[in-house]
């Protein structure tokens, strides 16, 4: 237990070593420090987790130091370990370690940024540190520190290939869009502190239960503000537009940040503050609606993408939509369960796609791939395993978690059948686009020559993740059941009609996908031939026009305003001061001409003026 503080310390040390050495270390040292620090953190997490389970899974805290002392406001840097933060820590360090190992291979011979090896791992370690502070902090301020920290690292890593201005644009977009959510989050935090007088999570949850009756407006407002924060970080509609562009970063970054960990921060936040949503069912209902809308929109969008990483990005959005919806319908532990299994299979999918992309020399267009299954056997197997888990075929890890979510959603009293129906349609779409991705990438004619150069450090993590993606469902949920109110997965009759339909959806999707995309390609072209379907395709391809809408509604007016105010009107004040000074200077230059008699004339004139004034006074 005393070793808890070591978990975030190792990544921080790794970051400091890599950052302060400024790329002077040899690559092999960078690889050992970069991946090793996370590995050590993972080992400590394992030991701590074991001790925690042996001790009866009682929540434990560890006070590190007091952050500041301002009157009655004394936020402490205190680590808090319970089932929820243990699961998160395990995912972050475990999956994070595998991705770091993979990245040592992926980034080794990077052509675009050959000097950036050390920088890359420095950012990655800093990211893991920030994410660990986010989940381990027992104070909303510490959580917010981690929250902003992961945002910063996300910015740095999306823009890692900074020589291309488009990547810089993508990085800025991610930063600005998530900043909108962060603002909501900060407002919620301030409001919570004003109302309850504390920012400590456990204390504030206890205080909230005492202070607010069920359905309290204040709880609703704070709950919705936190939902706004979660929307930004977890890429939920309407703040989802940054995630597809975030694929500009290197593929391990996409795997770590934009699939396995950072984007789940919003899910963690809502799960952590679950008491507020239980007090306010209205806020919880909107959480569910947000998740439902996101999972529907993004699964349609994923179906028509051509870039393999964008398919995975939209699928991430839709899977997080499932988690958010699960939180909204009260399937608390199922949401965290899905978070964990999703981290396994989505990291696997991203890493496998990274191997494919590397083998094709950074080709990401699926229509230029094809026929790769024989040349890239390990990435193919990994992709296949990841896909069946994503599509939630029975007995894979995704099946258990998604099934639990959908069956709980169906029981929801508010709009159970709507939630279940939406999720079922999205499950069908998920299977459909996954099949399409596999068929386009690995089957059919080979269109680009593949050159497999991945070593053990890239294939090893893939194999381990394959095992987790297949078998991760057997972990079950006992560990978070003590923390979250539903007491683990809801037990259902697994042979009821609704359960059978839920189970059948992925199979139907895969068969449909095989029929449409696999058997004869003519069917698709025929389907896309009509004007209507072409318009639908274009609409879906653009992500339901959100980028277009925001360009018109936010970006264009802002740019116009900026252009109008190009000569900043506030500057007028300063420009006035400058021009006054310059005018006086010219005046003085005219009269200070060095001619003695001119000075004498002026003195005489002054004398006359004084004389006249005095006389005026005396006479008047």
């Amino acid at each position, binding site marked *: 237990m005393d070793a808890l503080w070591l978990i975030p310390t190792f990544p921080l040390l790794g970051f400091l070593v890599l950052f302060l050495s400024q790329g002077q270390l040899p690559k092999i040292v960078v690889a050992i420090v970069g991946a090793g620090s996370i590995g050590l953190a993972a080992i400590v997490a394992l030991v701590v987790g074991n001790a925690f389970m042996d001790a009866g899974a009682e929540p434990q805290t560890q006070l590190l130091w007091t952050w500041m002392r301002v009157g009655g406001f004394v936020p402490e840097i205190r680590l808090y370990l319970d089932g929820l933060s243990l699961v998160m820590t395990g995912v972050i360090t475990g999956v994070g370690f595998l991705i770091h190992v993979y990245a040592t291979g992926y980034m080794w011979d990077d052509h675009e940024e050959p000097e950036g090896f050390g920088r890359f791992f420095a950012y990655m370690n800093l990211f893991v540190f920030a994410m660990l502070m986010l989940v381990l902090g027992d104070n909303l301020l510490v959580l917010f520190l981690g929250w902003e920290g992961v945002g910063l690292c996300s910015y740095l890593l999306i823009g890692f290939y900074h020589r291309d201005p488009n990547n810089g644009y993508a990085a800025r977009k991610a930063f600005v869009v998530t900043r909108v959510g962060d603002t909501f989050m900060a407002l919620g935090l301030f409001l919570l502190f004003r109302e309850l007088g504390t920012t400590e999570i456990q204390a504030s949850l206890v205080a909230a239960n005492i202070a607010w009756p069920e359905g309290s407006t204040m709880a609703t407002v704070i709950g919705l503000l936190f939902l706004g924060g979660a929307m930004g970080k977890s890429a939920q509609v309407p703040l989802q537009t940054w995630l597809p562009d975030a694929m500009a970063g290197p593929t391990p970054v996409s795997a770590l940040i934009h699939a396995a960990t950072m984007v789940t921060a919003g899910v963690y936040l809502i799960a952590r503050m679950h008491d507020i949503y239980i007090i306010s069912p209205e806020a919880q209902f909107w959480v569910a609606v947000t998740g439902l809308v996101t999972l529907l929109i993004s699964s349609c969008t994923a179906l028509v993408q051509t870039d393999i990483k964008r398919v995975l990005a939209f699928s991430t959005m839709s899977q997080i939509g499932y988690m958010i919806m699960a939180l909204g319908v009260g399937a608390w532990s199922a949401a965290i369960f899905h978070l964990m299994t999703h981290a396994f299979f989505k990291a696997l999918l991203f890493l496998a796609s990274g191997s494919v992309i590397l083998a094709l020399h950074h080709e990401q267009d699926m229509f230029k791939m094809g026929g790769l299954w024989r040349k890239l056997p390990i990435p193919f197997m990994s992709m296949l395993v990841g896909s069946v888990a994503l599509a939630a075929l029975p007995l894979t890890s995704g099946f258990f978690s998604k099934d639990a979510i959908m069956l709980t959603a169906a029981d929801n009293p508010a709009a159970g059948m709507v939630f279940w129906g939406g999720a079922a349609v999205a499950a069908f779409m998920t299977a459909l686009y996954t099949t399409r991705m596999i068929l386009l990438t690995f089957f059919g004619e080979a269109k680009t020559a593949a050159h497999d150069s991945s070593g053990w450090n890239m294939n090893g993590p893939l194999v381990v993740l394959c095992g987790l993606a297949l078998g991760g469902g057997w972990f079950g949920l006992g560990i978070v059941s003590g923390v979250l109110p539903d007491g683990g997965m809801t037990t259902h009759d697994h042979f009821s009609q609704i359960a059978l339909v839920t189970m059948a959806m992925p199979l139907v999707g895969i068969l449909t996908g095989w029929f449409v995309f696999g058997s004869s390609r003519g069917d698709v072209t025929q389907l896309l031939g009509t004007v209507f379907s072409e318009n639908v395709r274009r609409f879906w391809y653009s992500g339901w026009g959100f980028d277009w809408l925001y360009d018109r509604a936010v970006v264009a007016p802002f740019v116009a305003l900026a252009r109008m105010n190009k000569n900043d009107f506030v500057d007028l004040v300063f420009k006035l001061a400058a021009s006054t000074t310059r005018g006086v200077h010219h005046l003085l*230059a*005219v009269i*200070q*001409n*060095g*001619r*003695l*008699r001119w000075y*004498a*004339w002026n003195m*005489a004139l002054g004398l006359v003026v004084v004389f006249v004034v005095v006389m005026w006074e005396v006479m008047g």
Partner: protein
Amino acid sequence: MNFALSIPLEHVFVLAAALFCIGLTGVLVRRNVMFVLMSLEVMMNACGLAFVAAGARWAQADGQIMFMFILALAAAEVAVALGIVLQLSRRFDSLDVDAANEMHS
């Protein structure tokens, strides 16, 4: 003792004012530095005359004391000014006050 003035005070002041204006005109219009200094001397003496006359009119010693100051001032001024005039003529080979103007505005 009564130094009753036989000349009216106004007349003396008009004379002093006339002298002052003559001196001022000389300072303003002459370019030769020697003439400028002489004109200054005239102006100071005009002031001195006004002081002495006023002192006599109100039977106060202040007027004559002020004249003493003016004399001392004139002596000091001439001592300094003649030094400058010497330098001026050496350096610029001219007694024109405008010749020393090195500002190019």
